[in-house]
């Protein structure tokens, strides 16, 4: 059995009816601040008695209140959970929640009527509010919530209801029950009891003397009738008190160490204490799964907000992978919220749910985006930490290589300059440039739109612009005398445009029909070429090439500098094409290389000097990703 759907209305940011679909195992909720991640977690907590953080009480601010003028607080909150995949035992236990259906339902409603500091609320199981909820049924679901800022040290500390105490009590539940029925003490209680007696009776430890002195002093002061009796020992002889006095110690590595070398948790690192805390919780939960041990539960829900808190990336990855495994093997349903690209890249795309809140919150599980299996596998491997930005930005520009990735942000400044400070960079719009390292648009863009007719699915409601090259053939055949054909180099220009060979071009039309995705292809050839073909850009581009040519005193560098002085904007397109082709030849040569060139080019652009024309397709992509609508520029070749 697992929690399949959550319907929320009137609670926190969910002014309109909102639905989120989970799957069995690990669920990772990503989304920017304000998208509703905490709201979803709070809604789950509202349904169950959380054993770790205590029951969540409804307060006034939980009732949704819009931000528009004259908005009033919602009159009621409705939270409904649907559970699926019940086996025989689940069906018997949760019979009342199923009614005549296969899935079980649990509903919480609260009215916005305060009475003595509390709001009227009801919790009922089943499809209609018929009978009162049996609390023993509710207790069959064990929900644990870990908040984002955790004080692991306090939680792990010894004392009442400490984590250790709970775990030990859970482990010894059966033995404690039998002992209680027989009226005999548990073996641990016997041992400690004996130990206490030994301490108190022996003359070796000065405890007996200390006790006598205190006693004498008290009797002298108060006399025989008013005085109390005292006793010094390690703890009361009850199982609870004994295990509550136990402390967890650590040692920094797995190397063999003597018990005396272990240290108190206050000396441990913050991150590691967090891990210990989570480990102790998992220990308790996995105990419940093993039959005949632990308390009987039919569903275990672990809610963790921002597990990355206090953890180094390496540890984040390990923790998440472990949670994913534990979730599957030990049938614990884990729901995690995160801002970390490390975490989102450590898990499979099938486990991620994207939350966004443009006007109303929307939850899109990535597994519903219509990704064909090959794409899914591809993305799982390729969605590393930097590419994960895809899921966390307000808009994204997908590019093919490192050159584009470095240069586009600078070009964006030029395009956005007209909007003034605070709105003239990609960061201002929360847009990320993501280097796919290849022409993999078909896989990644499927998340945001339907790339082909066969791959219909949900779409993550975030704008995504793909930038790709036209890639026409490098050589073309022309007829020469004698009826033969010769292959010559093809330099695209306004008078001679041919079809590209890039197979990503086939998707442009279908993607263009979607709401969030667009794929833009260059007009001519490749990234640097297309930029070179516009206006007088060649002036800057040739200078940059000249400046980074290794042999500065040689002919190539000088030649490049000379050429950079030409008035390119007055030239006709074919002539410019020739220069562009030469620039490309120089960039691609081993003396420079695309990456080095791009880095130098971007630096030059950053100076923001001089005129520069951004090619239309790049401009369109930038505006699309930033969510700005501008009429497309007319082609201004020549």
């Amino acid at each position, binding site marked *: 059995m697992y929690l399949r759907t959550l319907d929320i209305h009137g609670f926190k940011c969910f002014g309109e009816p909102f639905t989120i679909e989970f799957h069995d195992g690990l669920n990772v909720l990503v989304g920017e601040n304000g998208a509703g991640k905490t709201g979803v977690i709070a809604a789950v907590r509202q349904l169950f008695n959380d054993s770790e953080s205590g029951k969540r009480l409804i307060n006034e601010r939980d009732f949704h209140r819009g931000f528009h003028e004259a908005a009033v607080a919602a009159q009621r909150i409705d939270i409904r959970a649907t559970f699926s995949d019940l086996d025989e*035992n689940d069906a*018997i*236990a949760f019979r009342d929640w199923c009614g005549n259906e*296969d899935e079980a339902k649990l509903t919480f409603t609260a*009215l916005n*009527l305060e009475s003595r500091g509390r709001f*009227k609320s*009801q919790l009922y199981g089943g499809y209609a*509010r018929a009978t009162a909820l049996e609390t023993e*049924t509710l207790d069959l679901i064990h929900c644990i919530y870990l908040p984002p800022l955790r004080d692991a040290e306090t939680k792990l500390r010894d004392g009442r209801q400490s984590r250790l105490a709970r775990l030990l009590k859970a482990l010894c539940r059966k033995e404690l029950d039998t002992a209680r029925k027989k009226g005999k003490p548990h073996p641990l209680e016997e041992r400690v009891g004996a130990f206490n007696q030994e301490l108190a009776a022996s003359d070796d430890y000065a405890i007996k003397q200390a006790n006598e002195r205190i006693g004498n002093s008290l009797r002298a002061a108060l006399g025989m009738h008013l005085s109390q009796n005292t006793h010094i020992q390690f703890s009361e002889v009850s199982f609870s008190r004994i295990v509550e006095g136990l402390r967890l110690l650590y040692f920094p590595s797995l190397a063999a160490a003597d018990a005396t070398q272990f240290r108190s948790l206050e000396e441990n690192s913050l991150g590691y204490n967090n891990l210990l805390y989570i480990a102790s919780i998992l220990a308790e939960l996995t105990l419940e799964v093993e039959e005949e041990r632990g308390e009987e539960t039919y569903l275990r829900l672990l809610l963790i907000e921002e597990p990355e808190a206090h953890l180094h990336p390496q540890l984040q990855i390990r923790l998440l992978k472990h949670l994913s495994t534990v979730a599957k093997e030990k049938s614990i349903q884990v729901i995690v919220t995160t801002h970390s690209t490390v975490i989102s890249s450590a898990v499979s795309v099938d486990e991620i749910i994207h939350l966004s809140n443009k006007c109303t919150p929307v939850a899109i599980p990535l597994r519903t985006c219509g990704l064909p299996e090959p794409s899914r596998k591809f993305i799982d491997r390729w969605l590393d930490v930097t590419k994960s930005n895809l899921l966390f930005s307000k808009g994204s520009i997908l590019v093919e290589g490192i050159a584009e990735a470095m240069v586009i942000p600078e070009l964006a400044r030029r395009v956005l300059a007209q909007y003034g400070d605070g709105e003239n960079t990609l960061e201002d719009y929360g847009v990320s440039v993501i280097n796919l390292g290849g022409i993999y648009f078909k896989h990644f863009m499927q998340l945001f739109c339907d790339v082909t007719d066969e791959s219909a699915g949900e779409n993550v409601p975030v704008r995504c612009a793909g930038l790709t090259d036209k890639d026409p053939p490098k050589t073309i055949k022309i007829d020469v005398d004698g009826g033969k054909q010769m292959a010559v180099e093809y330099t695209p220009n306004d008078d001679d445009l041919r079809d590209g060979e890039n197979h990503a071009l086939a998707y442009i039309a279908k993607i263009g029909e979607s709401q969030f995705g667009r794929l833009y292809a260059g007009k001519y050839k490749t990234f640097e070429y297309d930029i070179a073909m516009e206006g007088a850009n060649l002036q800057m581009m040739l200078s940059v090439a000249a400046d980074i040519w290794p042999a500065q005193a040689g002919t190539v560098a000088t030649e490049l500098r000379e050429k950079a002085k030409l008035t390119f904007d007055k030239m006709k397109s074919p002539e410019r094409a020739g220069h562009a082709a030469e620039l490309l030849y120089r960039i691609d040569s081993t003396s420079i290389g695309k990456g080095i060139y791009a880095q130098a080019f971007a630096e030059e652009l950053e100076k923001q000097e001089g005129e520069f024309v951004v090619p239309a397709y790049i401009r369109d992509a930038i505006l699309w990703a930033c969510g700005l609508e501008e009429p497309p520029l007319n082609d201004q070749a020549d």
Partner: protein
Amino acid sequence: MIKLTDEQKAYIGAPIDQHVYLNACPGSGKTEVVAAMVAKVVEEWTSFPSGIAVLTFSNSATDELKTRLVRYLGEPLAFPHLVSTFDSFVHSRMVASIASEVTEFPGKDGGNRIRILENKADIFHTRKKICGRSVSACKYNYDLETKGFTFSTGERTRDKQLNDAPITNVAREDLINTKKRFWAAGFATYKDVDMIALAALQRPALTGYFQRLAKRFPLIIVDECQDLSAEQLAMVRKLHGLGVKFHFIGDLNQSIYGFRKSNPGNVKALLAELGFAELPLTANWRSGQSIVDLCSDLLRIKRISGNPEIASVKPLLLQYAKCPSELIPKIIELTNVYEEVVVVARGHSTLQRFCRGDSFKGVEVLALACVAASNGSNKELNVAVALFAEWLADKLSLQVTRSGPHCPVAIESKLAWRKFIHHCLKHLVNAGAADTNLTWKEWAAVAKKTMRNLPDQAFVLDEISGDLEPLRVLELRSPAKQGDIALSVRLNQAVAQQPVADVLRYETIHQVKGETHDATVVVSSLQKGIHLSHWKEWLADPASEGARFAYVASSRPRHMLIWAVKKLKADEKETLTRLGFELV
């Protein structure tokens, strides 16, 4: 209902410090009006911690009213008010705490809760034989009206024999003493509870107790008041004497519980005696005019208005030669535009001619539970659990609560009870009791053996291990004349109890009381003389229960009413066409 008529508004604003009778014709929107009125009273209530009690006669009616109230109040009706059945109110509010003063039950294990048994239980027999056999105290009740005893043993012929036989004084003494022993041991039937309540109301020592009760519930609203029995009316009279005000809601013309000894004449008399102010609801919003007119004419009462927005279709008459099931194709054809189509008959025997959907009894229930449990679907498993739990609880005379299902009072955790039943079923299935290829005789042997060693199983709950002892000598016999027949013949229907291929629902008149259908087919039996199930018995006397049966059944449909009768003679045709029917 958005707009309220003046009549409806009048009741919603009715005074709560007087007795009021809301005389509601069929289709008047009574439940909605009552919910609105209760909501208003609750919202304006200032006499906390006193509250109002709204009483109905069935769990489904209670549930329906509770749901409507949630809609009006935004939340369920809470303390100090309550909605429950009349029986439940009498049992838990009037009798539970003080019953021992009347029954002299000393209590068991520190509690003196009465264990209510149905007539399926069989303990505490009369010392002497009556009409050949001794009778169990669970199978008869005192009747206030006749001042005699009414028998309900579950077997019709025996009931008739006992009810018709004259009871000698000696037998009467025996019956009374057996009941007293029964009560003193902490048991009672539902009707006994009424008698205990009445006895308690007479005791001077309990006057203070009942005065406090009257203060606690100064206003009691009774829905379907026409179903009040003589005993219940007596209680009403007594409570009135203590100052409780009553609102009765119902329609005396829909009184059809004669077999339970409800007599509308008695209710009418009480209304007059205690000075109830009558408020009428005389507009039928459910049905088209011609249906409404026919119903009024059946009882020869004043005609009322129907719903003008529903096309008035003349009631139709279908005739069958030998068996009403001949008419099924025609019925389906006539009603195919409608969704909710119900076929109604007076009793199960007429309905049985339509489908095999009759109920299972006794040992068949046990077999059904085993088969359903092995079928694999979770829904059927839960149905199996409910069936087995009910069978077991009945067999062992355990007092159970409604939820659970049928969870014995002795067991705290309903989940533990369900798991125990689940284990029992698995135990039976593993022994082969779910094999439908067995004959009933073979199956009974297997089931008996397995049940007999049930008390020794490891999964038995401590709280009831003692109660299971009687199973060691359990007897199971195959149903009459089925010994050599395989289980599959009888049990091959789906357990889910949904109408399978047929689009039609089949119910008795008592089952459809209060419902709204799109089309209703009222089936008359072949012959007269079987419990007023023939149309001639419906038309014979407009003041009789027969007429009221027809009235209740015929006032269910919105659009189309059909009567299905045996082939008519010429004069019979005339009688019915004059009544308003059109022959098909």
